[in-house]
């Protein structure tokens, strides 16, 4: 036995879960949606997914190498970002544009602000919005079965006609690679909720408040079919379960998460109902990302045994 033993501050045991194991779970949870996307759209989707993951990881590694920082690609967060970017692209999106998007997401949105944990905006959505603004036509033209056509959501907005809910639920429609299949996304979401990786508060309040908003302000009124089409259409499910729940860019407090979810629902509703585009999820999420610091500030929990700060703190409880 050596003379001196290790010393450290308490606690002396640690949970097995690490940042990389969490990221790995997220990747696993995205596999159904990814697999369905590849099945639905063919090999081009597979190529895009692979390119985005590889380029995101490379961008992160190269940037950190050049900046003489610790290389953090092993935490798999760049891989998750790459995968999410790919799932947000149409399957026939030009490869070089996708790589550019990954570069924007990883370097401009994430690394410049300090890397993992420091970005104020979801890198994947930052990349998506960058691509929408830069290459709008490529991002919003979808072909399905060789025919260029509108997504069910666009059709809903333009004509008010509800496409087959069944095919929207299963995902055999036009759209980005990962957003079409509600069932595949839900399988992943249930896995994440079950493992305690994501908090139910954000997606549930998001979806409920959005449904209520659409019910009140949408053209269809309280028509269950219309609301269901809105819920299944576009990036709502993918956004609610996989993007809005991104730890870094969502509030750390429990009440904050509820506020965040409600704001998301309202903003998405505003964008979808009153905006020019049929989509609203990406912009709603990145806007709310920006509000996170202030949401956190007003929702700091009341410490155990203390009076709520609105009633004056540290007063002894009355006997």
């Amino acid at each position, binding site marked *: 036995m050596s003379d001196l033993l290790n010393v450290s501050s308490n606690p002396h045991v640690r949970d097995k879960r690490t940042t990389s194991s969490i990221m790995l779970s997220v990747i696993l949870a995205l596999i159904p949606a990814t697999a369905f996307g590849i099945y639905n759209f063919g090999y081009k989707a597979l190529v895009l997914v692979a390119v985005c993951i590889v380029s995101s990881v490379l961008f992160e590694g190269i940037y950190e190498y050049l900046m003489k920082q610790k290389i953090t690609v092993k935490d798999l967060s760049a891989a998750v970002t790459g995968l999410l970017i790919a799932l947000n692209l149409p399957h026939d999106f030009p490869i070089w544009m996708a790589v550019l998007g990954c570069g924007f997401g990883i370097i401009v949105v994430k690394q410049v602000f300090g890397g993992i944990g420091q970005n104020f905006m979801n890198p994947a959505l930052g990349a998506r919005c960058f691509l929408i603004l830069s290459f709008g036509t490529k991002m919003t033209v979808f072909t399905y079965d060789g025919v260029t056509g509108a997504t069910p959501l666009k059709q809903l907005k333009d004509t008010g006609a509800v496409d087959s809910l069944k095919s929207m639920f299963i995902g055999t429609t036009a759209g980005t690679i990962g957003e079409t299949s509600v069932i595949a996304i839900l399988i992943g979401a249930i896995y994440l909720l079950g493992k305690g990786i994501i908090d139910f508060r954000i997606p549930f309040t998001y979806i409920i408040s959005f449904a209520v908003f659409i019910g009140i302000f949408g053209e269809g009124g309280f028509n269950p079919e219309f609301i269901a089409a809105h819920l299944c259409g576009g990036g709502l499910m993918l956004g609610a379960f996989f993007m809005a729940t991104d730890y870094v860019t969502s509030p750390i407090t429990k009440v904050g998460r509820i506020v965040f979810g409600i704001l998301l629902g309202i903003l998405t509703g505003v964008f979808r109902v009153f905006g020019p585009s049929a989509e609203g999820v990406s912009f709603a999420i990145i806007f709310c990302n920006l509000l996170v610091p202030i949401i956190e500030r007003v929702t700091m929990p009341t410490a155990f045994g203390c009076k709520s700060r609105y009633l004056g703190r540290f007063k002894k409880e009355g*006997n």
Partner: protein
Amino acid sequence: MSILSFKGGVHPHNDGKALSKTRPIEDFEPKGEIVIPLSQHIGTPAAPVVKPGDKVLVNQKIGESSGFISANVHSSVSGTVKKIEARRMASGNKVMCVVIDNDNRYNECPITDFRKASEMSDKEKLELIKEAGIVGMGGAGFPSHVKLSPQNKEDIEYIIVNGAECEPYLTSDYRRMIENPEYLLEGLRIVLSMFKKAKGIIAIEDNKLDAVIKLKKLLHHDKDIEVRTLFTKYPQGGERALIYAVTGRKINSSMLPADVKCIVHNVDTIFAIRNAVINKKPLVTRIVTVTGDAVKRPQNYKVPIGTNIRELVEAAGGFKKAPEKIISGGPMMGTAIYNLDAPIVKGTSSILAFTKDEVRDSEPSSCINCGRCVSVCPGRVVPARLSVMAEHGDKEAFIKNNGMECCECGCCSYICPAKRNLTQAIKSMRQDILAERKGGK
């Protein structure tokens, strides 16, 4: 009856209790030198009343309490006082100690007091408890006689015996309750007799149901004491979590249990109180669990205070594999020690030896804001934010965000997937601020 609990907390992945749970308490008589610190409690250190060369007997007082919040210290062996000098404690502090050359005869001080507990007044009982040098044996070491004399003595409604033993690996309280449940009840009745309105509650986690059943059987239909089952979760045995689970009352860092009409005592403390009042014997031994995957024969020992830790570990068969880390206390709140040459004190509930140091093997990375620390924090603060404030030295923000409400339980560091040392940062900041406040600012 329903199982009681609190919000937050963690379930450590390996509770390790199986190692020593079935091992009965064994008397351990050290052979080597005994080092008895004069400060094993919160408050003023005791003043030595012996000098080098003096002969001492077991139970003889060697340190006199010096102040209201202070406690007497007694010899746990018979022999000769070698010297009085500062020695290193398990906590890392240097404390004045009485070093005794053990003659291995264990000759006891004669007892001259033959009063019966039932004939004594509250004041006399309290005097005996004070004389016996009893302090909180869960680890904090707050002098028990002070705890037992709150200002609102008449209002106290509950005397809660903390049998949660929520720290992984520890089994000393469990063995106490299993082996001598009748003593626990006797001790608790003595305390209850001092508080007219009070009712006794023995709170035990549901991983020790056999202890619950044993105690319930002994109680029959007694109305004055109740056994309550707690959900097994760390830090269920923390004072604030315990009081909340049992009574639904909440206290914060600036309140005492007496403010919500409760007094909480550890199981071993109640045993010491019984021993003091019935047998007129001071606190000179305690139960220590020696365990961990590096220990050859994990065991529960009844150990004289002042025993060298190395000697105790050797009694447990020594190490089967070289330990990387040794902890005095539990794995969640205990203190890591850098060598074995420190004495067992009144608050040492266990000595743990691990072959693997989980903390060294996990490298801290950036916070990913996942909020797990917030979910597990029993004090309902935001450890991730507080630790940043602490690292920046921003005292004002730290206090404003309830940093002082942290109970240093370690749940946030335990759960953190980025392996950040949240508790350490917050704890250091708290101690800085407390020291500043004490400094008369």
